[in-house]
């Protein structure tokens, strides 16, 4: 299969943090290589869908805004996720729908209004050489991204795109259904699948874990998000290090939970309440510091069903 690769955008202003993300880096976690991939799987998947792409194409994850791009050719794009005051030339850029952008036109992200991370997909997908099977950009590991070295976007970067195949534009869904567009400013309820150490927390702490309002701390990044609230007490202080899966909610000795996201370390030794579902982890990744969230225990069967339904809707 031969695909064309052309310059798609020029970065005219980098902003604080814009990263290339495909679905993530898999099959290498036993080597200490983290998962990477989109912090908000839901918005990332919709961005691809609305650009007419199949699941998994590389997308820009723009955190906090500030990014400015100039189109180097005519493109079809879509932006899903956070409202970062995006503009298309001098007009507000509509979110959750496909948009035509002409050569020389500008896309500018401002400051966050709702949510934290916007996903910009382009028809055909951004193009970069995979490293360890993925282009997911993990700065800490110096892996992935446009140059393979884990670098965030920088001013002057030329962003290559894969020319979309001719039949793909016909299948474009132009707008995401209203119910797929979350209100990120609303209080979030996060589904959590209880894990093995749940029984080692005291009864009071179990009540608090699932009934307290948790405040999203400003110590939050792609590795994890700290929650503050009533201190949770666990009979286990620390454990022998073991593999940590996405969404694990670990509780260090200060009793304040940390939900671990895509760039978490691969092993760790704190007791855990359980795992946020992938959609709950996505939702948390859009919470601004100071927002409140609640944890809701969920059964494995319902959690799996919800996840499969989401993938079927967007795939």
């Amino acid at each position, binding site marked *: 299969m031969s695909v064309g690769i052309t310059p798609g955008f020029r970065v005219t202003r980098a902003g604080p943090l814009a990263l290339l993300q495909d679905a993530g880096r898999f099959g290498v976690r036993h080597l200490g290589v983290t998962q990477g991939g989109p912090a908000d799987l839901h918005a990332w998947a919709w961005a691809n869908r609305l650009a007419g792409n199949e699941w998994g194409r590389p997308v820009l994850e723009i955190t906090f805004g500030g990014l400015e791009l100039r189109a180097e050719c005519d493109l079809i794009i879509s932006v899903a996720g956070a409202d970062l005051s995006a503009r298309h030339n001098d007009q507000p850029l509509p979110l959750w729908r496909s948009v035509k952008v002409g050569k020389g036109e500008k896309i500018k992200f401002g400051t966050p209004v709702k949510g934290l991370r916007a996903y910009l997909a382009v028809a055909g997908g951004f193009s970069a050489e995979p490293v360890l099977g993925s282009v997911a950009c993990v700065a800490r590991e110096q892996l992935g991204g446009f140059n393979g070295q884990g670098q965030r976007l920088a001013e002057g970067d030329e962003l290559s795109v894969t020319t979309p195949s001719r039949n793909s534009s016909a299948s474009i869904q132009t707008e995401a259904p209203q119910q797929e567009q979350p209100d990120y400013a609303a209080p979030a309820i996060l589904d959590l699948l209880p894990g093995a150490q749940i029984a080692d927390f005291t009864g009071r702490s179990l009540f608090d874990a699932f009934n307290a309002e948790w405040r999203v701390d400003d110590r939050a990044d792609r590795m994890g998000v700290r929650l503050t609230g009533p201190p949770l007490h666990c009979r286990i202080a620390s454990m022998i*290090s073991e*593999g940590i899966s996405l969404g694990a909610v670990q509780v260090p000795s200060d009793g304040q939970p940390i939900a671990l996201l895509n760039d978490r370390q691969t092993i760790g030794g704190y007791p855990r309440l*359980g795992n946020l579902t992938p959609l709950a982890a996505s939702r948390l990744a859009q919470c601004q510091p100071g927002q409140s969230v609640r944890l809701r225990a969920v059964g494995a069967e319902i959690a799996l069903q919800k996840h499969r339904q989401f993938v079927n809707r967007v795939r």
Partner: protein
Amino acid sequence: MSHAGLPRLEPAGIDGWMIRLFGTIEENNLLWLTALTRDCETAIGAALVDLVPSYTTLLVIFDPLQTNAWEVRAQLVDILARLVPDDAGGEGELHELATWYDPSVGPDLARVSERSDMTINAVIDAHSYQEYRVFALGFSPGFAFMGLLDDSLICPRLDTPRAKVPSGSVAIAGQQTAAYPAVTPGGWNLIGRTAARLFDRKRDGFSLLKVGDRVRFVTVDRHTFENEGGDPTPMAQPAKETRT
């Protein structure tokens, strides 16, 4: 596998199971863990996403669109019932890591020597004499936690981690030893530097070391270290340990 209630299967999200085999760290754990890892690869096949072995556990991550937790659980129960540990003698690839032990690249050699009441040469002998096993990889790509260190060398982590540890640095902390594959922050005691390329994105398998492998640090002089591609750039010496 004599601990009460073990082995045990613990839920780890919609796409994972934690297989807990042991309650304590023992070298023999690895014989079971490497065998279990291999059996899982074979049995789960295409629906398998990742396997993360570590000290006493194996985390199994599967694709929840191709299979589900109940199917995988049944497979794991079956595997555990038939599990036979690897042979104690021959298992695990042996790696010899050419290591230049010198205060210029191992700024904590003096501290370790003082703490252990041994000469620097005795510390080097004790560290390079023994063969180590890889118990886990983590912290950064290709970072292997190895052990178990001779009791005489046990030394706590630094109170304040260094912001930048040079790649190749050979280090000890508690009962473990490791070599830093890349420049990262680090709180372990640095005693030397290896010329070995521990993580290479162009190499088949990427990481030189894998869980269950055996490692020996081989003392080389500066000349050999440089010939094998080692970077002899000295480290800034640590601030003197404050005594109260």
